[in-house]
């Protein structure tokens, strides 16, 4: 049932109120720290105070002697029962959830206590004596490349460089040789992180008789990760059952959460009690597997005399921190839309991944794609300055036209659909640029600068999985599918129950599952309930990563409801005494075509199908019950070529966004304030506008954090200098403005209903628009933002090297 005609939709496009909210506003959410089990003990973890050191010895005697302490264990001993953590790196960069003999970043777990309360556990931490032998701290990624001896973090890898590759797609040399302008810039992308308000945690029970773990955790991808955690724990996947909790925000960071459940599970088995381990904020900041891309770019855009873009070179050094869990996945992601919304026929991607003594990288909303968008949009603005072509005209001139879709970019990925001009037009319709130009002049008299920024970016969605490994010669886990499942039953009372297998983590899975099921079955959403199954009752599910969940749920629900509908029609037609093709389904009933008075309600049919087998013919067709399950594969992916001259189709559901930002900068304090913000997105067909707008606003809020406020700073000795929320400044209600959000809908030809993903779009678009607005505030003075965040001191430095004011 693929349709792009909105007028036919009854429930899709409605602002259905979220069923999730009722428990959440009542204090009845089910978050991991709310789980309390009989005999449950509490864990606390000792974190390394050093960036790089050998652990000479750990003395746990005094900690063990403290009343109320059940268990004290150091990393080496813990590794006897819990093996290395899962990693996509190949050969593996070995990482234990508790350091064995060597610590590689501040905050890395060294030892753990299990005690009657968290208070006692923390008392005991203070009694642990660790003897460290310091090693050189490697902080600068460029210096890390050439480091030798003790400054190599993982001696078995021989070097801190864990990946180096160069790929060229399309006629690159010709493009640069014949270019009228080559726009080159160096960019520095800051280390930031999701920082959800809930930290990571797990409560694990181990049944010694059955040798089974029961895990409550706020991670995601349970059905995928379960098997990997089982291997680390030395058990089979069926011996771990993951329950699904409410999750207090993830933004990607909790999607590959291994260390917390592994620590809790290992401790529970050793202690012989259920164990709760919930990170405190400091642990989450220093060890939450939470830091994101930390990159240096040397980038160049080849531009013909008439302004046509002809080639793009991206040379990247990425500081991964101390381990390499996700391999180069975030660059696979950036490659999905490396050439943005523009026709650019040639692309070079040269990547050096390097390890340093910092917290390792994990996904964060955008997963590297947002960095690529920033760099490309900044190059386009620079090209506008160098060619003298208006920045909006230059974009329009190079946009892929709506008639060109599906459009193949140089590396092989496909964009499904779009209308970039229409999105830009819609965004411009929300702002009076002339009025702001006038305001720019009057503001100067008040010591204020006004600047306007525009960004037009793509918004790849619906993660498949090859991007996680295709840059690697010999990938460790070259999997090619990432399906999603649902199970739906209609109870004897006619109520539909949809079971899903991934958690609510701030998205709205219950709401969209209801709306989609209502649409397919034409049932009132009030007659649909949504619940979650633990992995032992579950089906395969990857859950909400890479802006995929709504699209994947729609596919799974389409499959399951198709099966259900067939059966409802069969039962209904039999009850009405007519053939299957003589009935139609509407308003929760089956009726005879042409004679709507002859009808059977879903409730009657469900009751008959549940309890009156003898009223129907024998055989399989009328087997009792109304239930169906369906596993849906990604709608469109292909394999990369062996030599990677073509990466295949790996992220083809591609939305688009235009953000226009107006900033006001105080000349004296260099404080940047956002005074107007417009965001127009095309996320295909929208299931629930209010929810989509929530995702966009939330993504922008995080984008403003990245653009203006947030950064992890490390000292020369590898100390994390921004280790609390007082030092790492996530925006408050003062910093985030009201935002005009609007939509254009070009349905995807590849997905159910034409839906595209939208979970990351706000953050995929925000930062280049803010940077451009700051440049524009100093128009004609040669100021160019190439590094974030633009804090007042950073802006002061930029202004002192920029030219004099022309006005």
């Amino acid at each position, binding site marked *: 049932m693929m349709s792009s005609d909105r007028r036919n939709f009854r429930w899709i496009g409605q602002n259905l109120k979220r069923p999730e909210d009722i428990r959440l*506003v*009542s204090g009845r959410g089910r978050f991991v720290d709310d789980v309390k089990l009989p005999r449950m003990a509490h864990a606390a973890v000792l974190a390394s105070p050093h960036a790089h050191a050998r652990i000479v010895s750990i003395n746990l005697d005094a900690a063990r002697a403290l009343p109320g302490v059940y268990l004290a264990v150091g990393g080496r001993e813990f590794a006897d029962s819990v093996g290395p953590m899962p990693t996509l790196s190949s050969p593996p960069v070995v990482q234990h959830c508790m350091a064995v003999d060597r610590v590689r970043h501040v905050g890395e777990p060294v030892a753990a206590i299990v005690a009657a309360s968290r208070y006692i556990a923390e008392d005991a931490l203070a009694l642990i004596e660790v003897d460290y032998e310091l090693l050189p701290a490697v902080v600068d990624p460029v210096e890390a490349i050439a480091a030798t001896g003790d400054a190599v973090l993982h001696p078995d890898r021989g070097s801190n460089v864990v990946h180096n590759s160069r790929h060229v797609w399309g006629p690159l040399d010709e493009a640069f040789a014949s270019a009228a302008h080559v726009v080159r810039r160096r960019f520095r992308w800051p280390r930031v992180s999701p920082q959800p*308000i*809930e930290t990571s945690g797990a409560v694990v029970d181990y049944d010694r008789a059955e040798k089974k773990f029961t895990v409550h955790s706020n991670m995601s991808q349970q059905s995928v990760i379960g098997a990997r955690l089982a291997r680390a724990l030395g058990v089979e996947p069926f011996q771990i059952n993951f329950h699904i909790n409410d999750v207090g925000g993830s933004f990607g960071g909790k999607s590959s959460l291994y260390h917390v459940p592994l620590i809790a599970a290992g401790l529970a088995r050793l202690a012989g009690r259920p164990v709760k381990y919930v990170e405190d904020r400091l642990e989450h900041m220093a060890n939450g597997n939470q830091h994101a891309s930390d990159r240096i770019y040397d980038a160049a855009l080849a531009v013909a005399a008439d302004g046509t873009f002809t080639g793009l070179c991206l040379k990247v050094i990425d500081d991964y921190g101390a381990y390499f869990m996700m391999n180069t996945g975030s660059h696979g992601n950036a490659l999905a839309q490396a050439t943005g919304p523009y026709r650019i026929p040639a692309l070079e991607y040269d990547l050096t991944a390097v390890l340093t003594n910092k917290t390792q990288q994990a996904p964060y909303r955008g997963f590297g794609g947002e960095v690529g968008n920033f760099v490309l949009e900044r190059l386009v603005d620079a090209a506008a300055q160098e060619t003298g072509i208006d920045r909006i005209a230059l974009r329009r001139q190079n946009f892929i036209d709506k008639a060109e879709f599906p459009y193949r970019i140089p590396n092989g990925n496909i964009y499904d659909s779009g209308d970039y001009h229409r999105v830009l037009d819609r965004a411009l319709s929300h702002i009076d640029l002339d009025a702001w130009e006038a305001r720019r002049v009057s503001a100067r008299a008040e010591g204020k600068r006004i600047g306007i920024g525009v960004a037009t970016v793509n918004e790849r969605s619906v993660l498949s999985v090859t991007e996680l490994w295709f840059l690697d010669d010999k990938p460790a886990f070259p999997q090619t599918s990432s399906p999603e499942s649902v199970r739906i039953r209609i109870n004897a009372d006619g109520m539909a129950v949809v079971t899903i297998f991934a958690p609510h983590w701030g998205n709205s899975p219950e709401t969209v599952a209801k709306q989609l099921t209502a649409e397919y079955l034409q049932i009132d959403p009030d007659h649909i309930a949504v619940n979650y199954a633990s992995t032992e009752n579950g089906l395969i599910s990857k859950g909400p990563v890479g802006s995929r969940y709504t699209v994947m749920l729609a596919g799974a629900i389409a499959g399951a409801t198709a099966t259900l509908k067939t059966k409802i029609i069969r039962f209904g037609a039999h009850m009405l005494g007519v053939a299957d093709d003589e009935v139609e389904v509407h308003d929760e009933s089956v009726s005879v075509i042409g004679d709507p008075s002859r009808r059977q309600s879903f409730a009657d049919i469900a009751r008959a199908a549940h309890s009156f087998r003898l009223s129907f013919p024998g055989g399989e067709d009328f087997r009792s019950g109304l239930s169906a399950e369906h596993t849906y594969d990604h709608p469109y992916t292909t394999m990369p070529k062996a030599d990677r001259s073509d990466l295949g189709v790996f992220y083809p559901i591609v939305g688009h966004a235009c953000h226009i930002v107006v900033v006001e900068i105080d000349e004296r304090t260099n404080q940047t304030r956002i005074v107007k913000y417009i965001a127009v997105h095309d996320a295909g067909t929208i299931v629930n506008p209010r929810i989509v707008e929530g995702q966009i606003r*939330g993504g922008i809020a995080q984008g403003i954090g990245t653009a203006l406020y947030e950064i992890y700073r490390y000292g020369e000795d590898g100390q994390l200098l921004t280790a609390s929320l007082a030092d790492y400044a*996530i925006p408050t209600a003062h910093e985030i403005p009201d935002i005009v959000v609007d939509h254009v809908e070009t349905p995807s030809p590849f997905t159910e209903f034409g839906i595209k993903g939208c979970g990351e779009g706000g953050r995929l678009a925000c930062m280049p628009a803010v940077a451009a607005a700051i440049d524009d505030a100093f128009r004609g003075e040669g100021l160019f933002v190439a590094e974030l965040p633009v804090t007042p001191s950073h802006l002061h430095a930029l202004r002192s090297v920029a030219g004099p004011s022309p006005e």
Partner: protein
Amino acid sequence: MTISVTINGEPIAATVEPRLLVCDFLRDHLGLTGTHIGCEHGVCGACTVLVDGRTARSCLMFAAQLDGAEVETVEGLLLPDGELSPLQASFRDNHGLQCGFCTPGMLMTATELLRQDGRLDREGVREAISGNLCRCTGYETIVDAILTAGRDQAEETA
């Protein structure tokens, strides 16, 4: 030590360690897990409760300090018939929450604000919630939710 405290209207006597924090007292000892802990260092506001009608960060206060106090938590907001209060309903109607982890703190801060006299406007609401971090919503819909709920008490001037 022993304290007597009223929690959401219910009198409670409890023996507590002097160092026990209010958030842990509520969550672990009383099973009132609606109050959330986000940072334990007074920055995020997720743990906000009302003590004698005033907002307090329950991660920065000892249970021992509650002796004789009246405490209100998110669990006390539902109407007696179990329906959502106008403020709770307004958060739902305006999509003022996504993950819902900051929400109990936001609701308690808003409860204090709505009890004060005077007109509410967007800036005032932003000011009032500026000590409560939300990483999901971008705040705008939280402001909408509080303003909508306050419409009967104060004229909206936004």
